[in-house]
């Protein structure tokens, strides 16, 4: 088995940094380690975290720059859809300029365009979901679909502003017991998967940092 030096170094570096960060975050105040060491590890952890956020912030800038380059290229080359690129570039600069020099206009754009558009998109979900539920048993009927529809109807009816205590109690039970249990299961799964993924990255099984 051949081991590339670069890969080995990357793995070692990742493992070392990951270990330091974990120690820095998990070390309690009172440990067997000398307090000087603890403070040192925590300081290094803090620096590493800040470096990460700074890198991420720079990545955003790089992404914006890249986005502009791509769309400027499409614009100048008159590629297909260049008009959309033109709209994007104009919007970008208008937002930037108005933010600094005409804040009112910027707010107007944000509230009357972006918020409206995004809210409209969210509103469209309502129609799509209702129609999808309506067609649920159009093709075939299964027990799963029947249960699904019953639960949907129940939750929706319970959300109606009718003062039906029994309905509210059942809904509360649903939310507190089955839904809560399911949510906790999901969160546990996420936690376990996060741990596994972290360990895999640390020990070099997942080599995304090398690619």
């Amino acid at each position, binding site marked *: 088995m051949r081991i590339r030096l670069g890969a080995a170094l990357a793995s070692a570096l990742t493992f070392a940094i990951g270990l330091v960060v974990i120690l820095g975050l998990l070390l309690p105040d009172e440990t067997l380690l000398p307090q000087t060491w603890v403070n040192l590890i925590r300081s290094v952890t803090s620096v590493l*975290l800040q470096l990460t956020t700074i890198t991420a912030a720079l990545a955003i800038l790089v992404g914006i720059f890249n986005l502009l380059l791509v769309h400027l290229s499409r614009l100048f080359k008159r590629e297909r859809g260049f008009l959309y690129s033109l709209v994007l570039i104009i919007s970008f600069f208008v937002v930037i300029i108005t933010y600094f020099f005409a804040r009112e206009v910027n707010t107007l754009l944000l509230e009357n365009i*972006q918020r409206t558009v995004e809210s409209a*998109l*969210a509103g469209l979900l309502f129609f799509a979901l209702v129609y999808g539920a309506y067609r649920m048993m159009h093709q075939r009927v299964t027990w799963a679909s*029947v249960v699904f529809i019953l639960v949907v109807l129940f939750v929706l009816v319970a*959300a*109606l502003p009718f003062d039906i205590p029994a309905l509210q109690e059942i809904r509360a039970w649903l939310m507190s017991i089955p839904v809560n249990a399911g949510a906790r299961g999901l969160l546990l799964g996420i936690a376990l998967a996060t741990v596994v993924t972290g360990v895999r990255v640390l020990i070099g099984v997942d080599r995304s940092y090398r690619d």
Partner: protein
Amino acid sequence: MTDDLLPPWLNDDSDDSDDNDLPDWLQNADDDSPQSPKKSGVTGELSWMQDDSPSNDNPSKKGRASTGLTGELSWNQAETPDFLQDMSPDDSATMGYDDNQADDDDDALPDWLSASDDADDDDNSGLPAWLDDDALEESERLVQQSFTMTDEMSVVDFLDEEDDEESEELPSWLTDESPTTSQSNVFAGAVDTSTWGNFEGSDEPTNEESLTDAFTDDSWISDTETPDLEEDFSDLFTQSSPTSDFNRSDLPTTGMLFGDDDFSNEVDEGSFDLLGTPNDIDSLLGGDDFDLLGELNDDGDDAQAFDLFGELAEPQTPIANELANDDDFMSNFGDDDLFDEDIDIDALLGEEDPFRQFDTNTVSEEAEDDLSWLEDISNVPFQDTRPEPLFKPETRAKLSQNLPQSQPEPELDIENYLASLDDMSLSSITGDVDFESADLDFETLFDDNREEMGMSGLSPDAPSWLTDLTAVTAGENSAAAILSGQKDRPAEDLPDRLKALRERGFDVQSHPKTDAEVLSALMPVSGVMLSDTADSAIATVALTAGQVQRAELLRTIVGNALEANEADEKTRRPRRLPIERLFITAILLVAVLAPFFLDNLRIGAPPPNQFVVGSRQDAFYRLMDTIPAGVHILIAAEYGAMSAGELDIATESVVRHVLANGGIPVIISSNAVGLVRVDNLMDTIAAQNRLVANVDYVVVRYLVTDVVGLRDFSENLSSYLAFDVDGNRTRLAIDDLNDFARVVIITESADNLRLWGEQVLPLMTQPFLAITSYSAAPLSEPYLSIRAGAYLSGYGDSYTYQTMVNRLLTGGEVIIPTLPPTVEIIIPTTEVPVVIPIDADSTAEITEISPIVTESVVDTTPDAITATPDSAIVTTEAPTATLTAMPSATPTATFTPTPSPTPIVARFAIITAATPINIRPDPSTTNPPAGVLRPEERALIINQVTGVDGQQWYNITFVNNAGETVIGWVREDLIQIEETVLTPTPTPSMTPSSKQMRMIMRVGIPQKGQESTPEITPEATPSAEATLEAEITPQVTVTAVVVPTLPAVTSIVVDIPMPDTDRLIAPMDVTDRQARWDSMALGILVAVIVIGVGNLFNLVRVIFRKRRR
């Protein structure tokens, strides 16, 4: 052919030890000795997969039975290198035997071969005698007139043309004890019978039903040898004599072994001819490393041909190695009787089949899916090598009628074949080899690093048929041994079924196929179905119903031209108006919009005006309503524009609630759009209520990244809070999360809440509150129920909360019902610093502090009027329903007067202009001035921004001549900045209502003509007596008697604009709030009706359909 015509190294009279005449590659092989692992014979191992029918194009080949071995490999067996016959002289010239040599490196070639490079066909002077055309012709005449070695032939090719009695007429070099004789022995010994059985399995009588498709494969019949030919084969070995000094380089390659027509018959019956004559190695291995047939057929590519034969010469053959290392190997061939017995096909196929060790039922199904080895099949040129029919057409037709009619068109294709292999998949042949991923090539197989390989010298990933071959012990399980143990019988004795199958093979008409045709034959699912007129074994395919289904499934998955055509047809269909969909959409639209236009269109009751006491919503409100004045509240606005309609009113309510209680909201967000929107919202609130950014509220800069960003925020709080969203310094002196009295997270996503719950909340002990969208509530429940227990979700809760906050802001009383005794909300101990304002010239008396303090603290220290209970006291006793008893549900709030503020670095602006300057209400010169400052006058700087003109503008405050406090902006070029450390001395001054507590810090600011370092600050140490009395009663009286000492010198008193905790916050606009609620309610109701009725209708329809059936 006589020995004279043979090259010296083939001449049996020559000294075996004398390798001088041998080609280099043979010399090398010879030097390796039988014990040497090195052995050539690479290419032939898989040649049994080749199309082994003789071509009709070549009359000389006509009438031969199938060979199973192309001449490219058979040259190694025959006395003539057949490939030379197919090659131009130029090609021949490049056929060096050393793959390390360049094409033009004729020096390394044998002289007779290099000489042919430039020689004319007629000029055979450079060729050895046995290669000379004339000599060849002569030798042919001498050996057998009817025998012509072609490139399509193998050892058995010429046997095919021989009668039993004519075996004596075989080339003498085959009958002699020559190295080539041993070659046959090796061939006989090296054949792995297990492999035979493997291929044979499909013809097992016990598997007739499942292998019906396989029986329809005509190709095996096209290759079928007549019994007498098989007898010839046996005779051949009978003629052969064992030899102890055989030249190992003359050992047949594995392909030669398989190239035996008998063997190939077996193989073809079972599988490989059905696979479409995958007669190259790549087609089996699925790799691109070695394309034997491609190299051989590419006459123009000399380099490839050169490499090919280099491969033949250099690599080792594990099989041959095994054979060579087997001491008993050669002795087995010493038994002439071994080959005397006839070959009985029935015995091979019957119950006593020695190959039955292969249980076809154990074949895994995986191989059916693994068709990667077919990828290169399109590169396989077809060779028309059909044999002569054994029976007359009428006979064949009659026999065909006896064929099993299990499928409508008993024609073959790869699908047909695979379907027939329900119990015999490729894995039985190839083992568990993933040919796509396995790095199988001959260089690997014959690598010198044999110790790294398996026991047989093969890679552990080598297919089983190869490993089986290497495990063969010559004489025990060899082909010859098996063949010799079988009784052959005439074709007429075969069962009718086999006869029919045999004859049907002669009906197959083939012609050279193009790659596209081959591909279409092998991949019928690609949409190119084979025509019925196609006459080759590959092209004449038919699919059973099951195969059609599978093909359709595959077509559905991968898509193809047919699907595209269907899609086109669909697009060409007249579009039907989706009336149903439009109708439902219209109904929903009307239901959602109508409440905005019709006031009376209301469904149900609006959200309540008050949360149910003891509910989570009520706990939320109480925690927010008990915020002490002057404390910071962290508000995370983690939502974007999409959820703005649902969560905006909640955010605004929280902010106004905090401000009304005297708190300082510190707003942060990892959602860029959300942060900008909150900033705009705060601008609006600030404009309404005369709030100052970074003083009364702070909108912190964007929080980058999710997990890491939040963790960094927790660990490096002060650096994150150092700047606001506009890049201005916030001057927040917060370095611990517990400095925030509350943390409120407003989110549209449960994931955001999870991140906050994991990265931030564990590091703090203050109450944690949340507002989530309706959709995020279920997944947020675990975190909320553990840490907070107090949260709002959805528009309804926000609606009620807004109502309650508005009532508070408008001065309306909040009706607090008597708490049920079971309700107990435990709030962690909170040390809330409360700065007791001290009026410099008055004595304040504190009376009737609302929170019930259960311990009495008497502190006479004037500068430390602090009452800090050591522990929180939880009172579960229900208080009386009075306004002052409201917080007593959980009276754990700690009252901590802290009259020792930290020093403040104050910056002052000194007017440097020669003339009076205008103080602007905003950082620009467009609006009328808010005040005037004369030269050298001072003002306190409270903020700093970059104006539209690009210059720095300072927000300053000062007291004008009329005694009014003026707040305005001044440009940087008109002032000079001076920093002064101030230690304000607080003067206790408390008002009955904590919400109206106000801290006013008065400091002396030296003005013009005075010294810049005033003495007021250090001298402003009041002597105070504070007495805090607390009793365990619903109503506590705390009395503080403060006797301050006035500052010695106080020239000018300036109010430092600290957060105004005595704010009057305007209530929120609730326009259309009710309409939105009604819209939601009506929309949900209509949705319920639509979904319920629609599904009920569908359910009934399905039930009736089933009943009809």
